[in-house]
């Protein structure tokens, strides 16, 4: 590696990426200075991009819609490696020990696992069901003991893969978990995996401490599919919102955020909100939960007060509020406002805007602090 004498000495703990959807580029930003440091181009179709970080927080791995997997060097402001590993992909995860990158694919349906260092293929796991059909894979997360967990959208299954021996992936399949799991989350302690169901009521829960007990259905009678409002955008569970003893999840086909008790797995409250929630994310200390919405309410953000479980505030950041990311200790939240071509930074205490950065059609903000969190 060439040593760049001109480079400013820089640590990566303050850094992050803003994804620019249509340009297929990413901005490296400094979260303390609120400024752009560099733009990395030619990253392909980033219409549904997500990002994970290496454990040393030097590298960012971007998963593109077109199956692209790009490794960015945040210290040298450059694209380190890029492969196109599938036709159509939806997200990914980094292993507990940081050595493996797993990608979940729509076509061909399955999971591919790569060396985090070289991006060479380590394991290819087709999501086969019903004698050779391939299912789209969603809700891929890392889990303790060098495992990955994911859901099969078409098959209605949840699989875990143990990669302790990379040459011999150990797969465990849980079948009939429910119709059309559309995304999954893992709690921050790495114990519970929860898949949201699109085709029927409730959520599928897997206790990774006791996988032999199988899948438990929670909130089984909450919303019947035929009572649902139309869903114009699939909600995400990725930014799990576990705050206090509660898990906050988007209701599907209802303008509500559901609050579930983590001990009993019962519904504590359904909080009415402005629209179909898309991301429901807890501030790192769990005091607030922030929610954005599907079209046509995608100009709004709402803040839930976790102490009272009531809405605290409604903000209108602009046109097409697509994603948000908290600073590591939660004093700020960065909000991607696609159609206004900017990212806004709010103070989460005063709820006032404190900075904004130009970005072309931004649809995601990801900070290096994700490197140290299970499920991110």
């Amino acid at each position, binding site marked *: 590696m060439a040593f760049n004498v001109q480079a400013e000495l820089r640590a990566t703990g303050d850094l992050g990426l803003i994804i620019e*959807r249509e340009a297929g580029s990413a901005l490296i930003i400094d979260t303390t200075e609120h400024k752009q440091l560099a733009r990395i181009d030619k990253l392909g179709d980033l219409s549904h991009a997500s990002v994970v970080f290496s454990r040393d927080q030097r590298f960012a791995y971007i998963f593109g819609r077109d199956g692209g997997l790009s490794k960015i060097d945040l210290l040298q402001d450059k694209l380190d490696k890029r492969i196109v590993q599938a036709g159509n992909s939806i997200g990914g995860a980094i292993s507990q020990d940081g050595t493996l990158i797993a990608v979940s694919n729509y*076509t061909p349906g399955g999971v591919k696992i790569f060396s985090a260092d070289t991006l060479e293929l380590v394991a290819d796991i087709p999501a086969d069901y019903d004698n050779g059909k391939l299912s789209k894979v969603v809700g891929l997360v890392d889990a303790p003991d060098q495992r990955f967990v994911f859901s099969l959208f078409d098959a209605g299954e949840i699989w875990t893969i143990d990669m302790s021996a990379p040459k011999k992936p150990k797969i465990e399949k849980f079948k009939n978990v429910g119709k059309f799991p559309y995304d999954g989350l893992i709690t921050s302690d790495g114990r519970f995996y929860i898949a949201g169901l699109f085709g029927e009521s409730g959520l599928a829960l897997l206790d990774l401490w006791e996988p032999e007990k199988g899948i438990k259905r929670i909130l089984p009678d909450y919303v019947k599919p035929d009572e649902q409002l*139309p*869903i114009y955008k*699939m909600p995400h569970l990725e930014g799990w919102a576990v705050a206090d003893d509660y898990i906050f999840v988007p209701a599907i086909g209802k303008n509500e955020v559901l609050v579930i008790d983590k001990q009993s797995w019962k519904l504590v409250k359904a909080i009415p909100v402005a629209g179909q929630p898309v991301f429901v994310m807890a501030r790192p200390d769990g005091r607030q939960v922030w929610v954005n919405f599907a079209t046509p309410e995608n100009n709004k953000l709402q803040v839930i007060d976790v102490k009272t479980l009531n809405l605290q505030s409604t903000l209108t950041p602009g046109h097409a509020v697509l994603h948000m990311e908290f600073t590591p200790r939660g004093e700020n939240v960065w909000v991607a406002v*696609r159609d206004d071509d900017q990212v806004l930074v709010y103070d989460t205490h005063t709820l006032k805007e404190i900075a904004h950065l130009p970005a072309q059609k931004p649809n995601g903000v990801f900070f290096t602090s994700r490197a140290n969190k299970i499920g991110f």
Partner: protein
Amino acid sequence: MKKTLLLLCISLNCLAAEPTSVRQAELRHLLKNDCGACHGLTLKGGMGPALLPDNLQGKPDEFLINTILQGRKGTAMPPWKAFMNTDDALWLVRQLRKVPQ
């Protein structure tokens, strides 16, 4: 091309009116962003199937217009009738049938 237009005229009784250019811009935006969320920014597919000309070949306009306006029950395809009328949907289908630039 002429032939498909002619067929269209017969099947929709030539009642279809082109959306205004402002409306077309709105629909293009909707197609890229809202439809794109499921069908992909470049319409090559995602959670929903690809909507490229090849994928739609042999599927009549009415069928596709109906899918767009009413959605498909039991699948993730939602109804868009709250956001557009038949003319808009027909215009979208015609856009989809064009080879993307």
